[in-house]
């Protein structure tokens, strides 16, 4: 892209009109200045940030993802490569867990029930 990267707040201001459907006003009262214990709760940040709707909030989350992974400094085609690799990895993880996790859980339950459930039966069998 030409020129300096567009600021996210500039991007947010050109958000199309989805406000009818998802007007997520997360405005709370700003917390008082003399809060004694400081935590990094997402709730506090959302309170201070005044997001007008869900689109803005998601755009901000995407911006955080860009900053944290360091993708922010790369060119757009590199960003797309990284995003597609990450997305396909996550999709594979989700699919694998969907297919295999119930089976594994069922087998594990059967195994453990077999151990603990079998004990009184075997001692009874021994005594009789």
């Amino acid at each position: 892209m030409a020129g300096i990267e567009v600021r996210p707040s500039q991007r947010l201001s050109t958000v199309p009109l989805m406000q009818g459907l998802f007007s997520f006003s997360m405005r709370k009262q700003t917390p008082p200045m003399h809060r004694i214990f400081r935590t990094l709760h997402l709730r506090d940040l959302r309170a201070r940030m005044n997001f007008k709707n869900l689109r803005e909030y998601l755009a901000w989350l995407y911006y955080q993802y860009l900053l944290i992974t360091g993708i922010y400094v790369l060119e757009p085609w590199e960003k797309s490569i990284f995003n597609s690799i990450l997305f396909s990895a996550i999709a594979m993880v989700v699919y694998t867990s969907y297919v295999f996790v119930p089976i594994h859980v069922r087998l594990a339950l059967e195994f453990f029930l077999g151990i603990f459930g079998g004990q009184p039966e075997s001692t009874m069998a021994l005594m009789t």
Partner: protein
Amino acid sequence: MLVGESLKNGQGTDVSSRCHKHEPFEQAPMYVAVLTYLGFGIVTLFGYLRDFLRAVGLEKCNIAQEREKQKDFVPLYQDFENFYTRNLYMRVRDNWNRPICSLPGPVFDLMERVSDDYNWTFRFTGKTIHNVINMGSYNYLGFAENNADFLKTVADKVRQYGVGVCSTRQEIGNLSIHEELEQLVANFLGVESAMTYGMGFATNSMNIPALVGRGCLILSDELNHTSLILGARLSGATIRVFKHNNMQSLEKMLKEAVCSGQPRTHRPWKKILIVVEGIYSMEGSVVLLPEVIALKKKYKAYLYLDEAHSIGAVGQTGRGVTELFNVNPADVDVMMGTFTKSFGASGGYIAGKKELVDYLRTHSHSAVYATAMSPPATEQIIRAMKCIMGKDGSTEGLRRIRQLAENTKYFRSRLKEMGFIIYGNNDSPVVPVLLYMPAKVVAFAREMLARKIGVVVVGFPATPITEARARFCVSAAHTRDMLNQVLDCMNEVGDLLCLKFSRRKYSPQPDLCDETDFELDS
């Protein structure tokens, strides 16, 4: 025990040395370090990808590379520094070397520049960004000004002496104005004699070799400036590094040096020189001067104090760290400083006993080979110093020093309250705000410029790789409104980028809160 000794020997009071103990540097939560490494790792991988594309020929190489004939020889551009420059620095270099087109006062003008090819080349759009608040210039007392009334004496001296000196101090370049300046500097610092040089960096790098040589030992702080390190290396003395501001480490090294002597022959060291700085510019921390002086007296070493950032900026009347800690200036053997920061000129000085300075006049490389300081710069320093000392008949100097101290205190306390991690002593006007992650550093600089505030961000080669930071320099010329504007923007940008990492419980000043109820964990 050591502090007790220094209090008896020096003129310190209990209160002043306790108040100036610097706080330990706060560490960020573990996830921050993990994410920083993650960010660097991902960008490094893409760097390898881009290097591969360039090597294969799919992409044009915009940076220096060897010619075809040289490719079979030892590679020139494959080391880490070149890799980092090519693949990390070049992507984001629009945040550095920004051209300024006005005086670097409390506000300045920037030339707007854009890049069409991701920062490989820039072009100027022709527009200027006006009235950007300057939080990066070392303009501590606000002497970088172009007020015609204040600069009248400078204009007169230019008419009298011209601008160029065209000679070195030892040949025909020793002007009477230089003598006047040196007398004034010696009076200002409370020492016997002083000598001035045209360049601050050269003062350190050219004078340390004149003071120590082979067979001497230099004990230098971990975070010393490059000029001190260069001077130490040029001298040929043995250099040992002690941990930053850590008196136990320094004492251990001194004991070992005195007991064992030189490495193979075990002869005693000819001289032991402890090199420290008044304020460290990347951390904002202040040297523990009374303890260092006590150690130096106990082990009979010499002390070289580099007051580049602290002269004029700390202390009740701007005399630097010796005044801050209430220490006799005669205890410091070599006092060095620069005129670039608080005095709005250029150059450096070395001050101390008359024998020392007379020796340096003949034996220093800077005195023999470097051109003398030019007359307008000399007169600017003279007028600034007279202003600070009150010799020009007004209280302007004292007002500026008080204003700087007040601005520093306000700025630091507000930033800490907001939740940023700040390094350094409460009195130092250098305020590093830790940003950690590489992408956040870049985004921070861009966001602040978009809000018309110019900041300096520093990253890997100058700081450790996980501790990238933005360095603010508070000035006496900043008004309370400007500082408030900067703080509001910091608040906004801190929330936008999630930069408030501090986990310290910080109870604010009573005059800042209006309500009386407390929330413990909101």
